[in-house]
């Protein structure tokens, strides 16, 4: 019997049992819908997270901090030589060091603000690393002098009231710093508050970042000035910018080799993003595996219905065999029905799955809105989390083939049962 005729006969048989066929197909549709919607949604969610992380973390910058989470944070800090040797590594565009000053109080006339992160940097190098985020509200300073101070957005606008900033460019302000003064041994050095005058070189635009360095809360003074005030030539952090983000992991390994084990920790955004991406992929696959269970349930439904169908059509099978149909023809006729259920259910499921993923994305985006509160990591980008489902042709093909395979596997038992029927017994069946 020709394949086209077998398929046509199967289609006719299915049409004659419309309700049964529709319900069986519906079970496959539900299974495929679940798989495709989770695949599309998961892919969209994963890419959204990845994209946001790539925008948030400067992929081309490495953060090098002394010590290790496992061996304890080191008291040993970085020297100029450390920075220079990092700068010399091939692939590193620029490396810059940051000295952290601690709590600083800023006074401008009768206005006072607290800066939680006060840092001393080499402005030229630092801007070289963070060009995109180091953007001034007004004109940038023509030159960076020893008393230049740059103020982050949140320090300058503590209440977000843009009409009354703490300071504007060229204001002369006073910084109250905590400086350690030597005591007579064996007494430890004692902290002393000292005032220093600075001129505001510029104020920064609100930039934020979901990463670890949010310059909105930072103030910056020249490194050389800080060194003189504190009489300390070591720094707390090194930032390195690489030419190509994809090299960042290898460059991090080379930097690690410059120091003894556990002496430093390097934060590589690329590694972090890759890990998160891997985790999201695993979660996506896990969800799809759960969704696949519904397709297996559909398969059992198909097996059940087809077994009943074989029983009902026993006499018909007997007639077909009596007039010369081979066992494999009967097998093919029943399998064709389940395959057609798989094809139709699979195709409908792909469309409904993609449609459902949009509905879910819309609903989920709605749920995410209340979480948009002012936080340290608040950035313009996080104001609206939208998930755009991604239609992946690969997943559609995999799900479609999976549907057909499930239908074949579960259709095989009843089809074989039909094929193995003894014609005489089948003809006697009432």
């Amino acid at each position: 019997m020709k394949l086209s005729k077998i398929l046509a006969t199967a289609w006719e048989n299915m049409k004659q049992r419309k309700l049964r066929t529709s319900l069986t197909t519906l079970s496959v549709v539900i299974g495929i819908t679940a798989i495709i919607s989770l695949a599309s949604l998961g892919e969209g969610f994963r890419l959204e997270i990845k994209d946001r992380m790539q925008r948030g973390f400067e992929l081309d910058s490495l953060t090098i901090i002394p010590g290790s989470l496992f061996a304890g944070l080191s008291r040993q800090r970085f020297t100029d030589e450390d920075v220079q040797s990092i700068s010399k590594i091939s692939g590193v565009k620029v490396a810059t060091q940051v000295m952290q000053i601690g709590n600083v109080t800023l006074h401008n006339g009768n206005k006072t603000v607290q800066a939680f992160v006060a840092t001393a940097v080499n402005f030229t190098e630092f801007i070289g690393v963070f060009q995109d985020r180091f953007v001034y509200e007004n004109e940038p300073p023509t030159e960076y002098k020893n008393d230049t101070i740059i103020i982050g957005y949140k320090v300058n606008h503590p209440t977000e009231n843009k009409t009354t900033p703490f300071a504007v460019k060229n204001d002369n302000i006073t910084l109250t710093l905590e400086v350690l003064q030597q005591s007579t041994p064996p007494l430890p050095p004692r902290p002393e508050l000292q005032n220093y005058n600075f001129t505001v070189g510029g104020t920064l635009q609100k930039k934020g970042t979901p990463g670890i360095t949010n310059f909105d809360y930072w103030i910056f003074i020249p490194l050389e000035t800080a060194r003189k005030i504190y009489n300390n030539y070591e720094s707390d952090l090194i930032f390195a910018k690489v030419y190509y983000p994809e090299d960042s992991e290898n460059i991090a390994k080379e930097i690690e080799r410059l120091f003894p084990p556990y002496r430093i920790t390097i934060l590589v955004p690329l590694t972090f993003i890759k890990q998160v991406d891997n985790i999201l992929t695993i979660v996506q696959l896990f969800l799809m595996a759960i969704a696949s269970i519904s397709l297996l349930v559909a398969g059992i439904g198909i097996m059940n219905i087809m077994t009943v169908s074989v029983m009902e059509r026993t006499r018909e099978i007997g007639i077909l065999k009596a007039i010369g149909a081979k066992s494999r023809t009967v097998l093919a006729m029943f399998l064709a029905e389940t395959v057609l259920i798989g094809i139709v259910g699979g195709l409908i499921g792909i469309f409904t799955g993609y449609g459902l993923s949009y509905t879910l994305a819309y609903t989920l985006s709605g749920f995410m809105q209340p979480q948009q509160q002012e936080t340290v990591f608040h950035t313009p980008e996080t104001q609206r989390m939208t998930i755009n489902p991604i239609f992946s042709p690969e997943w559609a093909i995999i799900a479609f083939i999976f549907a057909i395979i499930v239908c074949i596997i579960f259709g095989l038992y009843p089809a074989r049962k039909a094929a193995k029927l003894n014609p005489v017994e089948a003809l006697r069946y009432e």
Partner: protein
Amino acid sequence: MRPILEVREVKKGYRMGKVLVPALYGVSFDVKEGEFLTIFGPSGSGKSTLLHLMGCLDRPDDGEILIDGSNVLKLSDDKLAELRLTKMGFVFQFFNLLPKLTALRNVELPLTIAGVPEKEALEKAKEMLNLVDLEARMNHRPSELSGGEQQRVAIARALINNPKIVLADEPTGNLDTKTGWEIIQLMKKLNEDKGQTFVVVTHDPHISETADRIIYLKDGLVEGIKEAPRRNKQ
């Protein structure tokens, strides 16, 4: 006439639970090409079992069945199916038509299974329905046909593959006497006009008497073989 089908010491029993119930004890006879043969016997004599074995629908426990001289029982199930498709035609007591198909499609079915192109198969099916005088009813489903008409459709279906032998199992058993007689007359006409070999199983002595030869079967054994007067006329 040379035999086209030979039955040699065929034995068959059915297992009912742990008990083996014998149906045929060792039956032997020949079917000659072009003859109209009836197998006559009371209910339970093993007629239908014998017909099923002759039609390769079942396998005997012992003995041989030869078609055109070769033992068909050594063949695989698929080969037996092929043999049924190409060399056998079946007519059953309960017609055994597919209820969802029209008369035309029912008649066409063996050709569809054989993979004959649809157009050609439908032409042949119409021709067959014409032969049994049912062309006007070809688009009717079995439920819309009378018993006699259904049996004529079954005869058309049995003949469409131009089989060597048509095996009919109580073809009049489900029909009234008049219609049953018409069916037998139709088969005889086909036998005479086309030289088609018929083997008809019946428990009706009037029908069996119309045959060229009668095999008398009783309790699973051939009780006797009778050459009918019709054959002597030829």
